C-alpha cells in the first residue's frame, strides 16, 4: 500500500468516526437529558447537566410510576416471546405442509398468505380489533393469536422459499423408515430449518416488540406495552413531563441495544435474508 492510499484511508476513517458520532448523538442527547430536571429539558436540550439542573434518577422513578413501566416491560416481553414462538412453530409447519403437498388447497393457502403481506394494517385495523373484542382475544394471551394470523404471510413466504431448496430424499427415507408426517417434520425437517427459523424469529421480534397501533387498539385499554406506555406520557400538549419522557425513552432503548449487541450477527444476516426474499 502506498502513502497516498494510506492518507486517503486515514481521512476516510476520521470522516466515518465523525459520522458515527453524529449517528449516536440523538440517543446520547436523550440519555443526557434524562438526568436533568423536567423544566430544563425542552428549552436547553443541548446544555450539559449542571449542579442546578442535575436531578439524578428522579425522572426514572417518576416515569416508572406514571407509566407503569415495569408491567409494560413484562407485557411486551411476554407478548413478544410467545407470539414469535407461535409464529415460528406454526408457520414453519404450514409452510412445509403446503410446499410438500401439491394440491389446489395448498396453492390457495399460499397465495392468500402472500396477498396478506401487501395489505396495510389500516385496512383491517377497525374490523380486526372488533373481531378480537368479540372473540375475547383482547388480552395478552389472545393477542398472540392475532400476531400469528397477521404475521403468517411473511413468515410462511420466507419458510416456503427455504423449504423448496431442501431435497425431498431425506424426508422420503424417514417415511420409508416408518415415520409419520409429524415425526418427519419435528425430527428431520424442523432441525434443518434452524437458520431460516432464526431469520423469521428476528424479523418478527423487531416487529412485535416495537409495534404500537395493533396492541393499542386490541389491548391498549387494559394492558400497556412499552410503546403504548411511552405514547401515554405524551398526554395533552404542553402538560407532559419531559423528564419522565426522557427516562422512558432511555428505558425503552436499553433492551433493544442489549438484544442487538448480543445477537448482532444473526440480526444483520436475518435482515439481509428477509429483505432479499421479501
Amino acid at each position, binding site marked *: 500500500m502506498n502513502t497516498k492510499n494510506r492518507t486517503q484511508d486515514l481521512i476516510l476513517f476520521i470522516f466515518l468516526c465523525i459520522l458515527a458520532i453524529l449517528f449516536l448523538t440523538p440517543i446520547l442527547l436523550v440519555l443526557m437529558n434524562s438526568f436533568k430536571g423536567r423544566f430544563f429539558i425542552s428549552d436547553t436540550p443541548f446544555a450539559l447537566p449542571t449542579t442546578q439542573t442535575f436531578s439524578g434518577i428522579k425522572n426514572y422513578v417518576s416515569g416508572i410510576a406514571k407509566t407503569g413501566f415495569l408491567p409494560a416491560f413484562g407485557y411486551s416481553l411476554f407478548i413478544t416471546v410467545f407470539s414469535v414462538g407461535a409464529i415460528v412453530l406454526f408457520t414453519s409447519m*404450514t409452510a412445509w405442509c403446503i410446499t410438500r403437498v401439491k394440491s389446489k388447497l395448498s396453492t390457495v393457502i399460499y397465495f392468500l398468505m402472500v396477498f396478506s403481506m401487501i395489505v396495510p394494517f*389500516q385496512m*383491517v385495523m*377497525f374490523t*380486526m380489533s372488533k*373481531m378480537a373484542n368479540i372473540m375475547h382475544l383482547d388480552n395478552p394471551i389472545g393477542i398472540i393469536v392475532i400476531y*400469528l394470523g397477521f404475521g403468517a404471510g411473511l413468515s410462511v413466504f420466507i419458510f416456503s422459499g427455504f423449504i423448496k431448496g431442501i431435497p425431498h430424499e431425506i424426508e422420503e427415507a424417514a417415511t420409508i423408515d416408518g415415520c409419520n*408426517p409429524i415425526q418427519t417434520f419435528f425430527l428431520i425437517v424442523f432441525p434443518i430449518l434452524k437458520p431460516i427459523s432464526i431469520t423469521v424469529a428476528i424479523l418478527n421480534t423487531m416487529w412485535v416488540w*416495537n409495534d404500537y397501533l395493533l396492541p393499542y387498539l386490541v389491548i391498549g385499554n387494559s394492558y400497556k406495552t412499552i*410503546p403504548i406506555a411511552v405514547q401515554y406520557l405524551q398526554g395533552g400538549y404542553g402538560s407532559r413531563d419531559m423528564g419522565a419522557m426522557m427516562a422512558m425513552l432511555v428505558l425503552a432503548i436499553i433492551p433493544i441495544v442489549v438484544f442487538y449487541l448480543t445477537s448482532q450477527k444473526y440480526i444483520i444476516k436475518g435482515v439481509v435474508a428477509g429483505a432479499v426474499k421479501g
Partner: protein
Amino acid sequence: MQKMPKLFYAFFTLPTIIAFLIAFLIPFLLGIYLSFTEFTTVTNSHWVGVGNYILAFSDDKNFLNAAIFTAKFAVVSIILINVFAFLLALLLTRKIKGTNGFRTVFFMPNLIGGIVLGYIWQLLINGVLIKFGVDITFSANYGFWGLVVLMNWQMVGYMMIIYIAGIQGIPTELIEAAKIDGANSWQTLRSIIIPMVMPAVTICTFLTVTNSFKLFDQNLALTAGAPGRASAMLALDIFNTFYGRVGSEGVGQAKAVMFFIIVGLIVMLQLLLTRKREVES
C-alpha cells in the same frame, strides 16, 4: 410427498389458518363490505353505496392533502436514503479499519421503534427550532423535513447493509479486469459497480416506498399531524378519520380501501419491474 392424510394436513395447517382467518381474512373482507356502508359498530351497518368514497374527498381536503404529503415524502426519502446508503456502503467495502464497528453503529437506529424514534427527534428538532422561537408544529414544512431526517436516520443503515451485500457479491475479477483495461475509479463505479448492484437498488427502492407509504408511528410521535392536520400522512389520516369523531367510520374504511389499492398498485409495479429484470439477466 404428494399426498398426506387429511388429518395430518389439518394438524399442520389449521392453527395458522384459524389465526389467519380471525386476524386477517375475515376483517379484510368485512372491511371491504363496510366501506360501502354507514356504521359505528360492525353489526349496525346500512348500505350507502359509494357515498363514503365521495365523502372521503368532498367532506374535507385532509385525505387529498395527506396523499400529496405522503407522495412527496416518499419521493424525497427514496432518493436521499438510497444515495446515502449507497455511499456509506461504498466507504465500508474499502477494507478500512473498524468497518464492523461502523456498520454496527449505522444499523442500530433501525431496531428502535417508531414511537420512540419520533420522540427522540422531537427533542432534537425542537431544541434547534427554539433558538428561532418556534417548534416543529409551527409549519408542515418542519414536520416534513423532520420526518425525512428521522427516516434517513432509521433506514440508511438497513439499506446500507443490503448494498454492502450487493457490492460484495460482485466478482473481483470483473473489477480487476476493468483496472487492467485502464478504467479509473469513477468509470469502474459507473460501468461495473452500479449496474451490478441494480437488484439491490430495486429491493431498497421497494422497501423505502412501502415503508414511506405505511409510515404511522413516527408521524404520530413526531408531529401527530400538527399544525392542524397539515403534516398527517395517509395512515395517520385514516386513523384520525376512524377514531376522531363518531359516525365517520364508513369514510375511514373507504379511505383505508383506497390506501390498500395505492399500496397494492405500487407492489404490483415493483413485481413487474423485478420480473422483467430477471428475464433480461
